[in-house]
């Protein structure tokens, strides 16, 4: 798993490249939280277009970051998930709290 972050004012865009499972979840969580350490970052967008696999460990990571961002009054957006990732996000109810852009 590789993460590429780009800061745009008060927003952070992070592209996740690879597979997000229990094995890669710890590193992913730590790197995302490092990007969010600066509390002036209010909004987070996760670009999932290069995420080839995600299981429920990824749901845990996303919901954890949602809580953090929501606590700051910001929004979490998910961008361009692949069909397999989108199916998991849909069935687990993530789109009830997190906005999706792109298909």
């Amino acid at each position, binding site marked *: 798993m590789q993460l590429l972050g780009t800061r745009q004012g008060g927003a952070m865009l992070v592209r996740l490249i690879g597979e997000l499972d229990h094995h890669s979840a710890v590193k992913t969580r730590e790197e995302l939280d490092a990007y969010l350490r600066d509390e002036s970052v209010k909004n987070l967008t996760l670009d999932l277009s290069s995420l080839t696999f995600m299981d429920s*460990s990824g749901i845990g*990571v996303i919901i954890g970051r949602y809580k953090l961002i929501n606590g700051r009054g910001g929004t979490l957006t998910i961008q361009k998930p692949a069909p397999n990732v989108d199916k998991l996000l849909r069935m687990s109810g993530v789109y009830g709290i997190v906005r999706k852009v792109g298909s």
Partner: protein
Amino acid sequence: MDNEMVIRFKSVSQNEGFARVVVGAFAAQINPTLEELSDIKMAVSEAVTNSIIHGYGNAPGGVVEIRARLSGKDLYLEISDEGKGIADIAKAREPFYTSCPEMDRSGMGFTVMETFMDTMEVQSGLGQGTTVRMTKRVAAEQSLDAQC
């Protein structure tokens, strides 16, 4: 297509990806669609992760075993560990229930297995390890084998 395989591997998280790839490659013999294949990989990942995290408490000394069988359009999977077992299976199967909330665990593992496979059953008890049995029937058996 009739075929069988067994793999056994250590309870380390690197093997989650390994298990997905092996079962995916095996199941490819009954020509699943891309969606069916990713459903199968998802379910394998969830079951193996449960064995590693919950069965063995993230300790590397355990062994996870996967038995897979293909028969016609059907995949039969059995994923077992000899870990600590589950005291209350009904509770463990509830969506969003997790015994590890502080670890950012979603509690969706069994729900994902149930949703993405056709059938799923759990056999477990405290100190008896856990076995998860799942089946999936693929839509079409299109033979890609050369007819010679």
